[in-house]
């Protein structure tokens, strides 16, 4: 329903520790690249969607003011979408609905983060309220470790097995990142390196965790009519899903994660996908933590509940496997949070456009992208395909 919408081009910064560049110039780097990629100019843009993490992490509030010029948004209609960690995919959703509604033909979506100038874990500690949760949910790893343990306990998965499978994911993604020119962490790691890395919050170790990245991503969405006029590969938006759940961590079941299940289901229904593992060619799952990535595989219907570690160890989700997940190296290797979800969308789009370069999955036609946020609370999915 609504008008068809396609992604016509993407621009990413070289993500990493970018202390040589200011925050506005980081944003500009991504925006300039999307215009170079598409051959479009700011004059072609009907509206801009901007988003990032909370002001405490940015060091400046209401960032659309500060980045108006860098985003080429001066004189443009603007929307500012923020949903914590899932911001990136929510920005993409906003651009999609804007065009699908008929209110615009060409929308620029921009997500950004300069994490090395802020304090991500301190900020995330303030996402939880000061009365009940803040004292024990410090930063992100605590929440996600508890979730992983809940899940392993639920399905009786031995600790050794989830450890082995999580290490496999870490090794695979860190290798994959070498083929992605924009990825942050490019290090060779072995299974032993992961298993012996410094403990962060049991069972999560340092190499199970994403880095602190600076980066921005810009994506241009267009209506069907306009996109076709460009005469270049288009990644068509096939399905959009989003769900959010309770704020208080103890109120919801994180083992069978309803927001993840529901977001994927809405997107699959719209895209007409019945068997995601068979029908999807590649997935860009938001995976800041290796253990949590397995939970997503199950919630997204890539396999049965409790089965993901076995399939991971069989290589089903490797780049050479049946459903390659995060061939870009994923969030595990690159995490400029406000941009990360949009990077997932951009990477999925590049795959179905056949423009992913060295990390291209051959023949990819249908791809899932995803982001997660809040107090383990929000999940958003966008599915893109090479055919309308």
């Amino acid at each position, binding site marked *: 329903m609504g008008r068809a919408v396609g992604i016509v081009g993407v621009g990413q910064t070289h993500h990493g520790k970018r202390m040589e560049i200011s925050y506005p110039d980081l944003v500009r780097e991504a925006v300039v690249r999307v215009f170079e990629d598409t051959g479009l100019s700011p004059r072609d843009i009907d509206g801009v969607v901007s988003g990032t993490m909370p002001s405490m992490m940015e060091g400046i509030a209401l960032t659309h003011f500060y980045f108006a010029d860098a985003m080429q948004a001066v004189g443009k209609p603007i929307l500012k979408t923020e949903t914590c960690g899932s911001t990136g995919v929510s920005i993409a959703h906003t651009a999609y609905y804007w065009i699908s509604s008929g209110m615009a033909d060409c929308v620029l979506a921009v997500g950004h983060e300069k994490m090395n100038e802020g304090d991500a874990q301190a900020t995330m500690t303030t996402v*939880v309220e000061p009365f009940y949760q803040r004292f024990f949910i410090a930063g992100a790893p605590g929440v996600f470790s508890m979730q992983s343990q809940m899940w392993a306990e639920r399905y009786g998965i031995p600790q050794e097995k989830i450890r082995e499978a999580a290490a496999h994911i870490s090794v695979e993604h860190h290798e994959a990142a070498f083929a992605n020119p924009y990825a942050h962490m490019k290090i060779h790691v072995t299974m032993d390196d992961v298993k012996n890395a410094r403990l962060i919050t049991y069972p999560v170790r340092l190499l199970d965790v994403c880095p602190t990245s600076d980066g921005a991503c810009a994506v241009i969405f267009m209506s069907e009519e306009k996109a076709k006029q460009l005469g270049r590969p288009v990644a068509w938006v096939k399905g959009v899903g*989003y769900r959010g759940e309770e704020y208080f961590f103890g109120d919801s079941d994180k083992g069978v994660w309803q*927001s993840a299940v529901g977001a994927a289901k809405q997107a699959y229904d719209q895209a007409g996908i019945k068997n995601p593992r068979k029908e999807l060619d590649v997935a860009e799952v938001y995976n800041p933590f290796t253990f949590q990535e397995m939970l997503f595989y199950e919630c997204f219907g890539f396999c049965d509940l409790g089965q993901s570690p076995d399939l991971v160890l069989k290589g089903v989700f490797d780049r050479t496997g049946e459903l390659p997940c995060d061939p870009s190296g994923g969030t595990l290797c690159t995490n400029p949070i406000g941009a990360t979800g949009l990077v997932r969308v951009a990477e999925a789009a590049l795959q179905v456009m056949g423009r992913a370069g060295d990390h291209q999955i051959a023949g990819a036609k249908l791809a899932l992208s995803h982001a997660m946020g809040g107090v383990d609370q929000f999940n958003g999915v966008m599915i893109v395909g090479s055919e309308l």
Partner: protein
Amino acid sequence: MGDRVAIVSVAQSPGAESKDNFYDQAYRAARECLDKAGLGREDVDTVVSASSDIFHGGISCANAYYWDTTGAFLKNASRQDGESLFAFMYAVMRIMTGQYETALVISLCKGSENPPNDACTLMFADPFYQRDVGLTETVAAALQMNLYMERYGVTREQCAAVAAKNLGNALKNPYAHRKGKYTVSDILRSPTLADPLTELQAAPKSEGMLAMLLAGEAKARKLTDKPVWFKGYGSSLDTYTLGDRDLLRGELTRAAKRAYDMAGIKNPKEGIDVAEICEPYAFQELLWSEDLGFCGAGEGGKFLESGATQIGGSLPINPSGGVLANNPYVSRGLQRLIEATLQLRGEAGEHQVPKSVKTALAHGTHGFAGQCHAVAIIGR
């Protein structure tokens, strides 16, 4: 464009400090709005909220905090930052795609739990050049006001008369936070904030939990006998650095033109029956009136003196008392739209304008000297 979109019901909290906690206050607005439409939470297809972390009592990711309270549990919902008219527009878009029949728009700001407004707006200033010199929304507005008076000969008295009018109108609005019968001289003699601005010419810090239910045409006709239709919308963002801008030729003209074009309005002075304008600083009502095409450049003062903008005038502006009476920062745009809705439905009570209202305009602005503007037009 797709389906027509209507406003079905609205609810708002009073602006004064409330003893209710955030959740109760937000829940009450959402509940009241749905009750008025005869709907339950499960009948709402999507929720779009508006909030800003900088105006959210020191808790980051505001939408995580209030998600359950706004009825968004396990729904496809989203959030806009900074300006609540953004949330309105995003909800309208979602309905226009045909994928959602109903949408709840909620704006949340509990002013009493926030530091002073300008402690927050100081954080709009970049930390390298502007923050250390203390650039805030009030300081930026004072610069803008000086320029306005100098370029057009608008007087301090004309600017203060806006506050006298609006705080007087607010006496008739049960939700208004600040209200009173003030003379121009009272307004001018209140303590100076940043010269030439005095305290009564600047908006207070208020509570604002607001809710609005939207529906596509078919659904709206089932839910209400008095649908108020979405007619047009426009927004625009100005360049960041204050010194790079002509503070009297901002982006409101462009935002308004977009809204008028969509609504098919050629002559706003004729086409708009009542306007709710976001005037956190009194003189801005005059300046924005010019940008909105209600009068010529520099004529805002004379326009006010003509009596046109009084409740009983030919083009009443801020019969509710406006933002000078009620300033829940993020929520103020949606509050203007709710007030415009009440005027169209003839439900504004004592501050209902006496003329026939067919088309109304709501305006929101945020940022230094109006860096960002949004304009919505609705009608019967």
